[in-house]
């Protein structure tokens, strides 16, 4: 608030010249005839230019190592997926095989060397989409509450706990999902969904395990909630206070002020926060692997078992049965690498676009 902070007002008195205390006479009296021991020591030192230059090079090396690491990962992924890249080409991402003996369609069958990434791409997209669907309203609501309405005493603890959620290892989320979330969905939520929304085809009762796309989506939603929420909070705080006042002065209610003065100005950054959450959801491995069901199939029903790109790599890499199997898994990894890099870069740019200005005055 403007009026609370008194303007710094420089009076004329402060510009009066300081009294001249160090006259030449005084200096001559203080200075000894002979250089002191400290002066002699300092004079004996060299320019230190070499150490400084060495330090600069060392730091440059640290900086450049980031480029090297990213480049090496990309290089290694490309090299190791050569076999699969050459054999399947772009078809890898959509092909379907028909087994000559059983006439069954299959996407992925390491024993018969059928490798197609479609069910994993589908699983990744569906589970991430479900996660966003559930996480966005909750995260934005939480951010609005924390920045605009939360009593000061509650703001710190709530923000702290939200950030803590991001620090929990994903295998813990997976365990919690297996022991708590999946049984809960299986016993209570899924039957309800099947009964009320079964007619849409998205919920059928062919899978009694409770594992599947929906379980993966819910656990992902919980995992990306802190990211979206804390970044949304950041971009909302970056909206200048004058925007809020402008809307209030027009006779806005609190909700109208938040909608017109805050959300509208922060929307690009909020989109960035959402995309960053998406980046995390796309790449999340452990928790999803524990609840998605690990079946290389495509189902319309969200309650069916599936698999995702990160999941299939984690599940099969250690026990790959052939070179082409390994290579196909690496190619999935390469695709995931490229997509997540692009998604994250986009997100960072959008968030930067909002927060680069001056931050809001906090009260």
């Amino acid at each position, binding site marked *: 608030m403007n009026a609370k902070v008194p*303007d710094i007002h420089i009076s004329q008195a402060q510009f009066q010249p300081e009294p001249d205390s160090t006259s030449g006479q005084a200096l001559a009296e203080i200075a000894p005839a002979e250089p002191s021991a400290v002066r002699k020591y300092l004079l004996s030192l060299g320019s230190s230019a070499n150490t400084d230059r060495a330090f600069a090079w060392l730091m440059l090396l640290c900086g450049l190592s980031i480029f090297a690491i990213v480049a090496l990962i990309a290089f290694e992924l490309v090299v190791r997926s050569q076999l699969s890249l050459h054999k399947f080409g772009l078809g890898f991402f959509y092909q379907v095989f028909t087994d000559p003996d059983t006439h069954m369609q299959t996407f992925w069958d390491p024993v018969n060397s059928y490798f197609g990434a479609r069910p994993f791409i589908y699983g990744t997209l569906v589970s991430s989409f479900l996660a966003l669907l559930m996480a966005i309203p909750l995260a934005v609501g939480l951010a609005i509450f924390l920045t605009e309405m939360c009593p000061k005493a509650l703001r710190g603890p709530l923000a702290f706990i939200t950030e803590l959620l991001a620090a929990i290892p994903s295998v813990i989320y997976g365990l919690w999902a297996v022991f708590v979330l999946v049984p809960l969905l299986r016993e209570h939520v899924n039957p309800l969904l099947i009964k009320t929304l079964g007619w849409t085809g998205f919920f059928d009762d062919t899978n009694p395990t409770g594992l599947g796309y929906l379980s993966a989506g819910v656990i992902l939603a919980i995992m990306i909630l802190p990211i979206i929420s804390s970044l949304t909070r950041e971009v909302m705080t970056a909206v200048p206070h004058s925007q809020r006042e402008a809307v209030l002065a027009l006779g806005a209610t609190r909700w109208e002020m938040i909608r017109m003065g805050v959300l509208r100005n922060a929307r690009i950054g909020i989109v960035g926060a959402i995309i960053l959450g998406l980046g995390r959801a796309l790449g999340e491995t452990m928790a999803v692997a524990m609840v998605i069901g690990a079946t290389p199939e495509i189902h319309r029903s969200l309650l069916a078992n599936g698999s995702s790109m990160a999941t299939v790599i984690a599940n099969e890499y250690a026990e790959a049965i052939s070179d082409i199997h390994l290579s196909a898994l690496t190619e999935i990894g390469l695709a995931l690498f490229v997509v997540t890099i692009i998604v994250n870069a986009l997100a960072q740019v959008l968030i930067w676009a909002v927060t680069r200005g001056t931050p809001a005055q906090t009260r």
Partner: protein
Amino acid sequence: MGVGIEVINLNAWYGTNHTLQDINLNIPANHATALIGPSGCGKSTFVRCINRMHETNPIARATGIVRIGDLDIYKDAKPVQIRRRVGMVFQRPNPFPTMSIYDNVAAGLKLNGYSNRRSLDEIVERSLKNSALWDEVKDDLKKKSGASLSGGQQQRLCIARALAVDPEVLLMDEPASALDPVSTSKIEDLIFQLKSQYTIVIVTHNMQQAARVAEKTGFFLNGRMVEFDSTHKIFTNPSDKRTEDYITGRFG
């Protein structure tokens, strides 16, 4: 048309800081009234009490009676209702950067659910003409964003935005202090034209500005109103020694 403002025993606090002490004055309708005084004297707090913006800060509070026309704003109305009647222009131009010029002016009307398209167009045009901005922006009303204008234009856009809701009182908190001299004189001309239709209260650091635009001037010092009189009297023959010291530049 504007209405008068009657202030009786107004006190305001920021936390434990008693920023306004026993303010009493009558602001005449359809005239410009200037409030002068050194920084931190409470004049901004005072105008923010007139549309109850003061209390948007959780540690702030105010007591006393403020009557806008016949309405006792602290007793008989909610802040939202008052702010629909009292427009405000801030020190720094604050147009909505994500809205077009048109939407900026129409913001207050749309916010309050006024959506008659034909008359919306008319009101936007009239408001921009009243704020002397129409000729400069009429060709890209819906193409350009409010933030693409120059600082002085942005401030006139903010005035148009405040005028669009047809306020009875227009509060201006140092409206020209962030602007260059040319833009400043445009804003002053504007105040001169508007004051026949609106009750204008303008806070200013610039005493010449007060002398140029206002019929009445109040001098604030340390949270109290030292003197309130016709502008001519304040600047030529003030009753209080402190007022004289301030306007002759002996402090502040």
